[in-house]
């Protein structure tokens, strides 16, 4: 509301990120950077077997190691099971182990060396049991059952169409989702062409550079202070309270920077164990997973086996698609915050598929438990669908771009799963990518080209809140309930607030303080946060403006109905005017500042607005070595209003290189017993700066209201 700014000056502008100075100077404090007096180091002993009964555990020698303060085994934490939706994860193995890497015992000691020495002296006797690693084997009637009993299930709700059964009477099945749209049987009967292919897609790791870390201090009066690498502290606090059977008011999650999340840092990981170690040792305990533990025993993306069957008419129009998607959930289901794998909601999303029949299974095996990673299920399903379409196009001798374009979804079409969506600019995105790439220009020797499409709607679900206050100097504080995991969330909050209030960006402060001093925030999930926080900010600004109107009326001796906000930033009533700074200074003197208001979003189940991307890659192959190299890519997007071009482009580039890694060089290799054998960053190959392709990004100039 000052004269020098306009409403949208900061929205759409490439402003520098607020966390920049902390992050480039080393001041930014991550969990592992927090040191408390008397703090111990916690470490765990993990199972060498995929499936075994624990016959006995002897900790007597380990207890004698100097500097050891606590040693826990399953017996010390019996009765606890935690997890998201499915409460199936024991804090330490309860009599049986179900994957190589499962935690069996834990030590807290003054130094890492003492802890490791103690671990090496714990004697565990195992009796090996049958195991199953392959999902198809796990589904057979005679398969080894990874769990005898289904666990407690809480909040298994779907936001999308589909028929969901949790723990149906099928071997090792956690959830079975079926969905039918249209009349697939009839469409298949009328088809001129039918194709069926199966794709097996391996697991990958989120690859965040900061490993899972937590530090917990439990006071004698029951207060629990937590620092942990978790993207959604309010959710983590509630989950921790339930997992530990203590009231959530007793728990505080303190603010720390998060060193990369990509969906992998929404669960509790070692926090329940860390709490019990701290309780037994009566000292704060810090646990930081090493990179071996991260790669072998954290919560990577699900491996999948996807069979697709497609019916087409004589003009190569898709009539119907059938999909059976089996996701390997590993030994525990509780690392997933949702009952099924949500990627099915964007199944073949860029295409008009009038008849569709889907089955999505999550299956227990004796492998590392799978969790969430960036668009869970999305890359697996997209890889299968796009490869399948390429194979069909090749068989029918069609150009893969034109085949896709002819089958692209358009305004008025229902999505493959029968949902109504709008702003379906799929063809425009394909055209933009083709044009920029020069699809028809001649190819060099040993060079291949390919296109893939993607569709994804922004999330509009669950709660976002802000508490906004404006003080006597007209400075605004916005309290949010989650840290900035690196996406630029806090900077975007500042930009949106500055835009709504017409204040300079420097007058806005955004902070996540701790769970006690901040409003609830579901956190980043399903591309929701920019949308949901924007609604919360608008609501808070409206409430602030209402309060300012009352103040201005009083100050100017007018009725509230006469107060106007002028374009030059002044507030006016009955011929008199005042600027915001003067008004707030007066309010403070009168004891009426700061003005504090709360804003909340209006969550909806599902956005009907959606986004498309089309990517074209040129790949060269060295015929002698077989080495492939992605030379050049075009990525075209239809995303609507961009709030900050720097952070937006950062998301595209980071996501693209992650997809590149998953396609070209990353793979969690499972051994025969399910053990991850690509267990170091030397064997698990994350893309480096040498690997990345030249890249051109196209953003469609489509003003889409979200």
């Amino acid at each position, binding site marked *: 509301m000052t004269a020098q700014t306009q409403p949208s000056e900061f929205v759409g502008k490439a402003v520098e990120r607020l966390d920049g100075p902390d992050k480039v100077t080393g001041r930014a404090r991550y969990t592992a950077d927090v040191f408390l007096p008397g703090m111990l180091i916690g470490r765990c002993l993990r199972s060498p077997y995929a499936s075994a009964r624990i016959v006995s555990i002897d900790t007597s020698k380990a207890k004698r190691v100097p500097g050891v303060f606590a040693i826990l085994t399953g017996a010390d934490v019996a009765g606890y099971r935690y997890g998201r939706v499915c409460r199936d994860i024991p804090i330490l193995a309860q009599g049986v182990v179900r994957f190589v890497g499962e935690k069996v015992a834990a030590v807290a000691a003054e130094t890492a060396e003492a802890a490791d020495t103690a671990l090496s002296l714990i004697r565990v006797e195992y009796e090996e049991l049958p195991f199953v690693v392959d999902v198809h084997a796990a589904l057979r009637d005679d398969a080894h059952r990874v769990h005898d009993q289904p666990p407690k299930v809480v909040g298994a709700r779907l936001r999308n169409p589909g028929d969901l059964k949790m723990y149906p009477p099928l071997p090792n099945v956690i959830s079975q989702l079926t969905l039918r749209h249209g009349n697939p049987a009839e469409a298949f009967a009328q088809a001129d062409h039918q194709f069926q292919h199966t794709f097996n897609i391996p697991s990958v790791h989120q690859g965040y550079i900061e490993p899972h870390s937590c530090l917990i201090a439990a006071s004698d009066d029951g207060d629990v202070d937590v620092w942990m690498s978790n993207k959604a502290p309010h959710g983590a606090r509630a989950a921790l309270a339930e997992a530990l059977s203590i009231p959530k008011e007793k728990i505080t999650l303190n603010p720390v920077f998060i060193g990369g999340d990509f969906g992998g840092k929404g669960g509790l990981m070692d926090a329940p164990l860390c709490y019990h170690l701290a309780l037994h040792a009566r000292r704060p305990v810090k646990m930081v997973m*090493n990179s071996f533990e991260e790669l072998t025993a954290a919560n990577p993306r699900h491996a999948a086996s996807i069979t697709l069957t497609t019916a087409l008419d004589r003009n190569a129009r898709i009539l119907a698609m059938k999909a059976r998607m089996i996701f390997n959930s590993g030994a525990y289901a509780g690392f997933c915050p949702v009952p099924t794998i949500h990627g099915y909601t964007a199944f073949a999303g860029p295409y008009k598929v009038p008849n569709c029949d889907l089955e999505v299974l999550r299956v227990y095996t004796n492998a590392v438990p799978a969790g969430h990673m960036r668009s869970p299920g999305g890359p697996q399903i997209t890889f299968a669908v796009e490869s399948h379409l390429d194979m069909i196009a090749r068989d029918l001798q069609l150009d893969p771009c034109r085949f896709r374009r002819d089958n692209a979804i358009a305004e008025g079409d229902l999505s493959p799963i029968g949902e109504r969506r709008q702003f379906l600019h799929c063809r425009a995105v394909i055209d933009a990518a083709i044009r920029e790439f020069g699809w028809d220009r001649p190819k060099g020797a040993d060079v291949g080209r390919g296109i893939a499409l993607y569709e994804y709607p922004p999330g509009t679900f669950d709660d976002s809140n802000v508490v906004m206050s404006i003080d006597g100097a007209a400075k605004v504080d916005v309290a949010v309930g989650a840290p900035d*995991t690196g996406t630029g969330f806090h900077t975007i909050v500042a930009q949106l607030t500055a835009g709504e209030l017409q204040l300079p960006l420097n007058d806005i402060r955004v902070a996540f303080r701790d769970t006690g001093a901040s409003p609830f925030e579901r956190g980043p999930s399903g591309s929701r946060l920019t949308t949901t926080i924007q609604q919360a900010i608008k609501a808070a600004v409206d409430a602030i403006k209402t309060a300012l109107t009352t103040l201005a009326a009083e100050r100017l001796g007018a009725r509230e109905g006469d107060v106007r906000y002028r374009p030059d930033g002044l507030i006016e009533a009955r011929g008199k005017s005042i600027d915001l700074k003067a008004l707030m200074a007066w309010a403070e003197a009168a004891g009426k500042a700061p003005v504090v208001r709360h804003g909340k979003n209006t969550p909806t189940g599902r956005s009907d607005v959606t986004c498309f991307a089309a990517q074209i890659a040129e790949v060269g192959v060295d015929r002698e070595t077989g080495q492939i190299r992605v030379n050049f890519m075009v990525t075209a997007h239809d995303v609507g209003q961009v709030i900050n071009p720097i952070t937006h482009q950062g998301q595209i580039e980071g996501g693209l290189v992650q997809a590149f890694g998953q396609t070209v060089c990353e793979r969690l290799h499972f051994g025969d017993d399910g053990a991850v054998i690509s267990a170091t960053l030397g064997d698990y190959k994350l893309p480096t700066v040498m690997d990345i392709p030249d890249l051109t990004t196209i953003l469609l100039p489509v003003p889409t209201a979200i």
Partner: protein
Amino acid sequence: MRTVHTTVNGQRVVADVPDNTLLVDFLRSQLELTGTKESCGVGVCGACSVLLDGKPVSSCLTLAVFADGCTIETIEGMADDNKLHPLQEAFIRCGGFQCGICTPGQIMMAKALLEQHPRPTRMQIKQWMMGNLCRCTGYYKIIESIESAAEGTKS
């Protein structure tokens, strides 16, 4: 236990360290310089990069006693009296970071690069920086940041 004489970010440090202490732990735990990060612990990711007598090393693979008689530069020493180093400014300007966990290592590595090649080519940047992993940015804006800093310091 050994007595180590070093200069850390311009300040003389004399400290007793156990023979098996890693430089990363010496910096982080003993000197409380937590700007240097540890991720892989096995010399692959570059998060722990610091400069020893001006040369980049993985502090997770270097014993603290090796630093005896050396100068050590860490991210905490990059800014001069609150005036950011041109590389730090460029990383902010170009968005060369997201979560920030790899950033101290990237900046230290880039500092050593620019000292050796003040106007690096894109290929020189890539070859020099290939030992520093970043999962967030896809590297494009890190390259841009280094190029931008190199241009700025030249003029």
